C-alpha cells in the first residue's frame, strides 16, 4: 500500500502530464488546420498539371520511345525507396506504420533479388529503419517542414532524385507516405514516382479530366517531347510536394488523436488515484479513531 505522500506525488505528476498532452493536442489541432489549408491551396496546381500531363500522355501514347521518366529505363534492378515520416515522435502509430510498410516493401524487393536504396525524409523514419536496414540508407533529409513546408524544399528533393536518376543510380523510385483521410485515419500509401504512373486522382478530378481531355486537341509549342522534358521533372517535384503536404497533415492528425487519448487516459488515471488516495486517507483516520477509543477503554 503506497503511503499518502506517494499518492499525492503521483497524482500531481499525472496532472502535469495531462497538462502537457492537452496542450500538445491543441497545438496539433491548430497545425492540422494550417496543414489542411496548405494542402487545399496546392490542389489547383496539381490538378492542372495532371490535366496537361494527361493530354500530353494521350498524344504521346503512340510514340514508342517516350522520355525515360515516362517509359522507365527498361530495367528494374535497382529500386529507390523514399520514406517520408515525421521528425518528431509522440504521434501514435504514425511513424511506425509508415516504417512497417517500408520494411515490407524493402523485404519484398530484396527477396526478389533487387538492389534497394533508401532515402529517408524525416528523422523518426531513419531512426527506426536503421535498426533493420542501416546499410541501405543512403541519406536522410531532416527538418524539411520547418518552419513551413515550401515548394522549394520539395523541389530540391525532386531535383536530387532526378539527378540520381540521370546518373543511373536507380531504375524505379517509390515514395511511401501517409495519405490524409481524416484526423483519425491516415492511410499509408506507396506511390511510384519513376517511371511515372498515373496517380489515383480523387473522383471529381477524374471527372474534370475526362471532360477536358475529350474534345480538345492541343497545339504544342515547342513539340511534345520538349514540353514533357520540362514537365515531367516538374511533375515529380509536384507529386513529392503534394505527398509531403499530405504527410504533414496526417502527422498532425495522428498526433492530435494520440494526444487526445493520452489526455483522456490521464484523466482516468487521476480519478482512480484520487479514489485510492481518499480511501487510504479515510482508512488512516478510522484507524486513528479506533486507536483513541480502544486506548480510552483500556484506561
Amino acid at each position, binding site marked *: 500500500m503506497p503511503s499518502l505522500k506517494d499518492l499525492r506525488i503521483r497524482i500531481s505528476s499525472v496532472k502535469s502530464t495531462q497538462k502537457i498532452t492537452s496542450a500538445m493536442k491543441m497545438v496539433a489541432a491548430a497545425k492540422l488546420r494550417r496543414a489542411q489549408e496548405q494542402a487545399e491551396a*496546392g490542389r*489547383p*496546381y496539381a490538378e492542372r498539371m495532371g490535366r496537361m500531363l494527361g493530354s500530353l500522355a494521350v498524344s504521346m501514347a503512340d510514340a514508342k520511345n517516350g522520355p525515360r521518366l515516362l517509359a522507365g529505363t527498361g530495367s528494374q534492378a535497382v529500386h529507390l525507396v523514399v520514406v517520408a515520416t515525421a521528425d518528431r515522435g509522440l504521434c501514435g502509430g504514425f511513424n511506425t506504420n509508415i516504417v512497417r510498410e517500408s520494411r515490407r516493401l524493402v523485404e519484398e524487393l530484396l527477396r526478389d533479388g533487387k538492389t534497394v536504396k533508401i532515402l529517408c525524409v524525416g528523422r523518426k523514419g531513419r531512426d527506426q529503419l536503421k535498426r533493420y536496414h542501416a546499410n541501405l540508407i543512403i541519406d536522410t533529409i531532416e527538418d524539411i517542414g520547418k518552419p513551413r513546408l515550401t515548394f522549394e524544399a520539395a523541389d530540391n528533393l525532386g*531535383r536530387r532524385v532526378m539527378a540520381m536518376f540521370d546518373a543511373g543510380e536507380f531504375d524505379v523510385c517509390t515514395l511511401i507516405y501517409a495519405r490524409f483521410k481524416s484526423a483519425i485515419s491516415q492511410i499509408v500509401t506507396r506511390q511510384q514516382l519513376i517511371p511515372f504512373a498515373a496517380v489515383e486522382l480523387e473522383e471529381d478530378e477524374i471527372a474534370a479530366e475526362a471532360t477536358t481531355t475529350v474534345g480538345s486537341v*492541343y*497545339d504544342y*509549342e515547342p513539340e511534345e517531347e520538349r*514540353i514533357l522534358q*520540362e*514537365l515531367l521533372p516538374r511533375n515529380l517535384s509536384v507529386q513529392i510536394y503534394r505527398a509531403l503536404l499530405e504527410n504533414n497533415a496526417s502527422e498532425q492528425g495522428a498526433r492530435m488523436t494520440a494526444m487526445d487519448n493520452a489526455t483522456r487516459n490521464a484523466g482516468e488515471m487521476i480519478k482512480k488515484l484520487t479514489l485510492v488516495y481518499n480511501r487510504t486517507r479515510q482508512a488512516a483516520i478510522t484507524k486513528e479513531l479506533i486507536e483513541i477509543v480502544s486506548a480510552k477503554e483500556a484506561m
Partner: protein
Amino acid sequence: MAAETVEFELVSPEQLLLSEPVAMVIVPGEEGDFGVLPRHAPLISNVRPGVISVYSQRNEVSQKIFVAGGFAEVTGERCTVLAETALPLAEIDRQDTEQRLRNSREDLADAKDDVTRATAERQIGTFEAMLRALQS
C-alpha cells in the same frame, strides 16, 4: 464581341495567385511571346522566365507579373499559367535583386556539391531574368 473575356488563371504550387476574366494576356512562351484573346486555339506551351502582361481592357495593361518559367495551357475560354515563382513587376526591387544576384554568384563560387551548384545557377538565371524584365 468586345465584352468577351478570357478566364486568366495564374497558379503556383503553393496557391492560386490570380483568377479573373481579362481581355487579353501576353505570355512569354519559349518560342516567343504570344497573346491570348478569347477563342484562342487550344495550346500547351513552355513558358520562359519573363513578364506576363494582363490586359483588363483592350489597350490597357492592368498588371505586369514576372514569372520564372513554367507552363501555359490555353483553351478557347481559359488561359492557365503554372508558374513556380510569380511576382508583380512593381514589387521587384532592383537593388535587392542585384544584391541577391551577387549572393547567388558567391554561392556558386563556393558551392561544394552538385546540388548547391545547380540551385545557385538556377537562382542566377531567375535574378538575371528579373533584371532584364526591369530594364524593358
